[in-house]
């Protein structure tokens, strides 16, 4: 990576660090909570975008990967009292990373059927996976079962979440810009032609699943260490659908679109709180209108900066 890019990233990281203290002092706790949830939503949406948007596979099990990450990391910081190190910021960071890796392993296992299945059929398999994961957590007494897992150290703050948003964004952007990423895109575009280019389709489908579920696991870990309490209900099928909505709204295959989708889907229900119970009618209504106006998502296949570049040139 060039020095300029490195320094830009460093500045962004410092800015997030500074903003963290600013927000904690000056912003209402509820607002900060929503902002952090937006960040987690963005990571989830960006990661699912790799499978659904870029590789062209349809996964409905993202909450499952998130759950694996959440429970695996929370297990390290609470149940398995390994060492006091895992109560510190750095220790929790390591635990969250482990959660991501655990989710990546799960992603590998779920990626395998994707070699033989596509479209709706794959969606059903991934849906099934998500439910199996949730029901496992529901029945393991060691992680609290239906009562959930309380007392998770509350370490993930604005800084940690948005640092991961940046890491996810940069990692996925660089992946998509590489020949590796183009190979993933070509699998979506035309499998036969991709194979004729010498691309091992099976390999890239699995890679997409593994990377995507890694970041979903990270999002889960952050979620657990932000809420300080998780239960199987946090990772229901509805959560997976929510993430799919984020990706579709933003535009399949668009990273910046996924980020925007993550914000919209997290933020809208909060903004509509004034409408009380009607918000669950108004929210979907807004989604329907959005899809009618922009059928390919807000940004379509493009990134936000590409949209502006096109306007500037024409």
């Amino acid at each position: 990576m060039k020095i300029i890019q490195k320094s830009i990233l460093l500045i962004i990281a410092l800015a997030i660090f500074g903003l963290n203290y600013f927000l904690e002092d000056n912003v209402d706790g509820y607002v900060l909570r929503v902002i952090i949830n937006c960040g987690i939503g963005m990571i989830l949406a960006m990661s699912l975008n790799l499978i659904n948007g870029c590789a062209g596979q349809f996964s409905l099990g993202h909450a499952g990967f998130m759950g694996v990450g959440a429970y695996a990391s929370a297990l390290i910081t609470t149940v398995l009292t390994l060492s006091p190190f895992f109560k510190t910021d750095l220790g929790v960071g390591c635990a969250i990373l482990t959660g991501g890796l655990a989710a990546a392993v799960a992603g590998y296992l779920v990626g395998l059927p994707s070699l033989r299945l596509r479209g709706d059929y794959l969606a059903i398999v991934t849906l099934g996976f998500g439910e199996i994961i949730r029901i496992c957590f529901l029945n393991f007494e060691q992680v609290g079962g239906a009562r959930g897992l309380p007392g998770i150290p509350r370490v993930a703050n604005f800084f940690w979440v948005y640092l991961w948003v940046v890491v996810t964004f940069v990692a996925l952007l660089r992946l998509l810009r590489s020949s590796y990423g183009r190979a993933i895109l070509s699998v979506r575009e035309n499998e036969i032609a991709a194979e004729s280019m010498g691309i091992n389709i099976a390999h890239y489908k699995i890679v997409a699943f593994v990377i995507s579920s890694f970041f979903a696991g990270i999002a889960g870990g952050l979620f657990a260490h932000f809420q300080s309490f998780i239960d199987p209900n946090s990772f229901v099928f509805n959560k997976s659908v929510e993430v799919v909505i984020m990706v579709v709204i933003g535009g399949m295959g668009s990273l910046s679109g996924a980020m925007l989708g993550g914000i919209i889907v997290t933020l809208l229900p909060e903004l509509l709180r004034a409408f009380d119970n009607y918000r669950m009618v108004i929210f979907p209504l807004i989604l329907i209108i959005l899809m009618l106006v922009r059928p390919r998502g807000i940004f379509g296949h493009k990134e936000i900066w590409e949209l502006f570049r096109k306007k500037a040139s024409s």
Partner: protein
Amino acid sequence: MILSIKNLSVNYGLIPAIRNLSMEVGQGETVALIGANGAGKTTILRAVSGLIKLASGSVVFDGQDIARLKSHLIVRRGMSHVPERRGIFANLTVYENLLMGAYIRKLLPGDLDEVYSLFPILLERKKQIAGTLSGGEQQMLAISRALLSKPKLMLLDEPSLGLAPQITKSIFSIIQKINKAGTTVLLVEQNAQAALKISHRGYVLEVGEITHTDTSEALLTNDAVRKAYLGDH
């Protein structure tokens, strides 16, 4: 022989599509495989490039049996397949499509220029989304993309499909050029006339079996072939 197919059989489920077919392509040749709809032309190409499994038979490419090799590995041995309906990556730019062509090797500085000199229109449309190209341009892109893997043998599946006669003509003359530059070509076509005109030898395929084989010149004057495929009554 760069490619020799012996006793190839392919089934779709229980239904045999190709039965006991043998054919050869010599180094440096352009060989045309012609036949009507559903004769099995595309099936043969797909079986050769590993996209579908064969029931029996052997495919020897460049001295090695590739019959049970996976498609993406066959490409690495120097065989490039331009699929039917072109199979371009519609949402990627022309440039990105070309980069994908060179996926298996390192792209050298002159490689793209070589392709652009064959098809200057692609240079003009470099940044355009490939799906917005015309049919002819898409075919040019598909051929260029295949060329960028520097194949020894290029399999072309119906390059004239859906194209105006004029464009077909120019594409066929470029195929001839590519062949003269040293790439062996196996050309599958419904447009028998055009295919035989630019090829050295031809095979005529009817419902999974080869009925005629000869030099292209001889096939062009063969009565039976003329009646069946060249619109001569």
